[in-house]
């Protein structure tokens, strides 16, 4: 059962190896993914991971505006990570912060290797991630959802991108830290991979880790990314299976 942190000297991991939200050290938060929920976007996906609630939309490939941002040999990938004012405990200003700008960049760079952008020179592919509720690990969840949204938009990709973070909390390497663990932990290590190609597209570390801890953490994260990729595949297929299912129920009636 979840318990609340009274003060900083409280341990985040109980003697039984159970974390504040009841999870084991190597356990992911519950994840829910849905594809194609927005009408106006070319592709869209919604993800819930623990208390994180994130909506991502993709527009493109589309004409580059302004023209000078276009590249002659490939599409320009643009990415915007943005948090809703009501997404955090304390209301935050909707104006982009320096953190938002850094995250927009690393998210874009996590997706770039996967998108086959050479097919669409002189266009832009725009990815918008809106964090509706935030509880730690939003950049990873955004990457996972962005990859779904890109696939939903029919943009050719070498592979999907799945992301997950590990942290060091109370001396232990833990998987998918939530906000409290992030804020009070000793290290945070977000990772993104292209699962079939086995290549890392996002890797950051904030904090202090020994080489052994880093490698153990990285392996734990990669394993989780593979599991998350399985859920991505389910979510993409479900969009089409749902149509088949509702067709059988209603006999394909026109709404």
């Amino acid at each position, binding site marked *: 059962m979840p318990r609340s942190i009274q003060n900083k000297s409280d341990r985040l991991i109980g003697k039984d190896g159970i974390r504040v939200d009841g999870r084991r050290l190597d356990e992911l938060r519950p994840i829910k993914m849905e594809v194609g929920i927005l009408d106006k976007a*070319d*592709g869209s996906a919604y993800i819930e991971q623990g208390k994180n609630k994130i909506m991502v939309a993709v527009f*493109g*490939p*589309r*004409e580059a505006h302004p023209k000078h941002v276009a590249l*002659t*040999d490939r599409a320009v990938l643009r990415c915007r990570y943005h948090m809703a004012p009501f997404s955090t405990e304390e209301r935050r200003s909707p104006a982009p912060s320096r953190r938002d700008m850094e995250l927009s960049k690393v998210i874009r760079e996590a997706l770039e290797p*996967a998108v*086959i952008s050479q*097919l*669409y*020179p*002189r*266009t832009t592919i725009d990815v918008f991630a809106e964090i509706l509720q935030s509880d730690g690990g939003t950049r990873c969840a955004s990457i996972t959802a962005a990859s779904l949204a890109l*696939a*939903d*938009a*029919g*943009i*050719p*990709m*070498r*592979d*999907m991108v799945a992301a997950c973070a590990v942290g060091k909390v109370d001396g232990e390497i833990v998987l998918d830290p939530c906000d409290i663990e992030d804020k009070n932990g000793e290290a945070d290590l977000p990772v993104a991979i*292209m*699962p*079939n*190609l086995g290549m890392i597209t996002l890797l950051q570390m904030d904090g202090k880790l020994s080489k052994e801890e880093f490698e153990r953490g990285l392996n734990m994260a990669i394993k989780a990314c593979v599991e998350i990729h399985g859920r*991505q*595949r389910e979510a*993409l*297929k479900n969009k*089409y*299976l749902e*149509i*088949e299912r509702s*067709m059988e129920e209603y006999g*394909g009636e*026109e709404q």
Partner: protein
Amino acid sequence: MVKDMPLNVQRREIVIPGELLADGKYLAGANTIKEGDAIYATRVGLANIEGNRIAVVALAGCYIPAVGDQVIGRIVDIGLSGWQVDIDAPYPAMLPASEAVDHRQEHLKQDLTRILDVGDLIIAKVLAFDRTRDPLLTIKDQGLGRITSGRVVKISPAKVPRLIGRKGSMISMIKRETGCQVIVGKNGRILVSSRYPFREQVAVAAIYKIDREAHIEGLTDRVREMIRRMIMDASIHPE
């Protein structure tokens, strides 16, 4: 897991980007990439195996012009020598005045708006397109030109082949059953025209149904059934 079995997927299975389709002496078809001997899907779609060629029939994606394509476009701007046309592609298309008039109508070129004005819809053909320049259109051929009546609807360009059907079977069936004139733009814009607004509605409903259910087998029968049911219902309960 995959190395022993060369073929990893079944026909018509839904695949996602990065999914391994086959590992062995296969040819890489549409929406796939080959790395060594392995062939991976690059888009969400249905796996299609024909002989030793593996391809993916994409279920989503934007329209990329190809020379010879028939498209339905909208005039968005007029320049000195032609019109800029929106064909719902990532590239704006150009219709030069010389591709809209023949030598007998040269005098019209003085005022392009007399031929086509902003907001007009046209059926056009793609004359030229490559990676370095925007698509060029023509409306000089038979059957091309300004649209004057009917309704234009939009579906995903990825579903257009399904709307046309094998050897045009699906589109012929819709035209026959609804009595409508239907002109399909490869860019996903479809013109439906009939003297009877209700028949237009039925054809439009059929087109949207195909857009939604393109990946499910038995579509032609289901669409035909739906059209017949709608027409019958209307005759029993005329509005």
